[in-house]
C-alpha cells in the first residue's frame, strides 16, 4: 500500500464524516441544554471517534469535513468564516487521538473518557478562540459562552462516546460479555 490511508481508514473517515453531516442536517446533533444558545452539539463526536478508532489522520479529516459542512450549512452565521468553521475543527480528532493514546495505560474507559473531554474542549476553546481573534465577539462574552456551553457539551460527549467505543470494540474482539 503506497499511501498512509488504507481502504479501511478511507471508508471509516467517510462514514464518520457522513454521520456528522446527517447529525447536523437533521437536528439530531443538537441536545437542548439550559444555555443561551439553547443546545449543545454532538456533531464533533465523529471527529473524536475518528481519532480514537483510526488514528490522527482520520481524526483530522473527519474534523475537517465536519468543519466544511458547518461552513456550508448556513444556519449559524458565525460559521460562515472558514477560519472559525474549519481550522479549529482539524484539531479535534488530532488531540482526541493523543489524549487516547497517552491515557490508554489506565484502561479503556479512562482513555476514552479523557479523549472525549479533550476533543470537546478543543472544539469549544479553539472555535471560540478563533471567534475572538477574528473580532466577532469580545473575550468576556466568549469566555462566558465557553463555560456555560462547554461543560454540558463535555458531559454529553462522554455519555455518547463511551458506549459507542466500548460497543464497537466488543464487536471487534467478538467477546459477548459486557465489561462495564
Amino acid at each position, binding site marked *: 500500500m503506497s*499511501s498512509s490511508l488504507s481502504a479501511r481508514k478511507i471508508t471509516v473517515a467517510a462514514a464518520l464524516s457522513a454521520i456528522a453531516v446527517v447529525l447536523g442536517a437533521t437536528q439530531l446533533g443538537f441536545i437542548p441544554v439550559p444555555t443561551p444558545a439553547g443546545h449543545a452539539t454532538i456533531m464533533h463526536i465523529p471527529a473524536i471517534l475518528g481519532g480514537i478508532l483510526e488514528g490522527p489522520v482520520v481524526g483530522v479529516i473527519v474534523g475537517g469535513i465536519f468543519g466544511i459542512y458547518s461552513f456550508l450549512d448556513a444556519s449559524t452565521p458565525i460559521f460562515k468564516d472558514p477560519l472559525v468553521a474549519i481550522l479549529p475543527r482539524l484539531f479535534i480528532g488530532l488531540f482526541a487521538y493523543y489524549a487516547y493514546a497517552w491515557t490508554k495505560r489506565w484502561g479503556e474507559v479512562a482513555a476514552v473518557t479523557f479523549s472525549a473531554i479533550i476533543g470537546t474542549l478543543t472544539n469549544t476553546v479553539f472555535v471560540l478562540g478563533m471567534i475572538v481573534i477574528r473580532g466577532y*465577539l469580545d473575550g468576556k462574552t466568549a469566555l462566558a459562552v465557553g463555560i456555560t456551553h462547554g461543560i454540558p457539551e463535555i458531559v454529553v460527549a462522554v455519555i455518547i462516546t463511551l458506549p459507542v467505543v466500548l460497543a464497537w470494540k466488543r464487536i471487534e474482539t467478538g467477546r459477548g460479555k459486557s465489561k462495564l
Partner: protein
Amino acid sequence: MNEFEFLRRVNIGIYLPTGSWMHRLDPRAKLLSFLFLVAGATFAPSVVVNLLLLSFVVLLIASARIPLKFAFAGIRPAIPFLVAIALLDLLFAPSVASGPGCFLVRQLWVFSVTNCVLNLIALIFIRFGTLILLTSLLTSTTSTAEMGLGMENLLSPLNSIGFPGYELALIFSLTFRFVPSFALEAERLVKAQLARGADFGEGGRWKFVRRAKAMLPLMVPFFLMALQKAEVMALAMEARGFVGGKGRTHYRVLHFRLIDGLAIVVSFIVSILAVLIRL
C-alpha cells in the same frame, strides 16, 4: 411525523441544472474560483469592498440563470443569530471594535453605537451574504459527481509527493454517497425506537444528562451501523484490488478550456484586489 423525514433535509444546496455557461465550466475551475472568492470575502477588511464583492457574486448568480430567491433561501434561519451577534457587539462595543477614529454616535440604553461597531456589524452582515451566495452558486451549478471528480483531479498532483490526494477526494465522494443512506437509517432507527416507546423528548432542558442518555438507543446503533457499513465497503474495495491512488486512470476525463482558465484568473485577481484595497 414530518420532523422525522430526514432524507429531504440532507441537502447541502440543491443542484439546479439551468444549462448556463457556468454549469458547463470545468468543476476544477469552479472549485478553485470558489476557494479564491471565499478567501477574498473572508479577508477583505473594508465594508465598501465587501459590498462590491457581493454585487459581483449577485451578477454571477444572475448570469448562471439561478433565481436569486433560491440562492438566498438559506438566510432566513440565520437572521435571529445575526441579530443576536449585532446586539452583543453593540453591547460590548469598546472591547470588540476600538481604535483611533472610533467615536460614539449614540448611546442607546446599554448599547454603545460607535462608528467602528457599525462598521463591524455591516462587515459581518455583508460578508455573510456574500459567502452564502457563493456557496449557493457553487452547489447549484455543480453536481456532487462533478465535485468529486474535480476534487480528485485537483488533489492528484499531490500524490507524487506522498500526500494522499486521491484518497482525500475519495473520502469526500464516499461521504456524499453515505449521507443519504445514513439519513434514511437514522429515520428508521428513530421510528423503530419510538414504536418501542422510547421518549427522545424527555427531561427538557435542565435534565440534559437524562436526555443525552435517552439519545443512546439511537446514537449507539447509528454509529455502529455506520462503522459496520464502512468495514464492509473497505472489504469490498480490497477484494476488488484497491491499492490506493497512485497511477490510477479514470473513465471520465475532464477537459480544460480557455474559459475555465479565465474564470480562475479572474477570481484570483478579484480576491487579491478585495484583500488589498482599503477603500
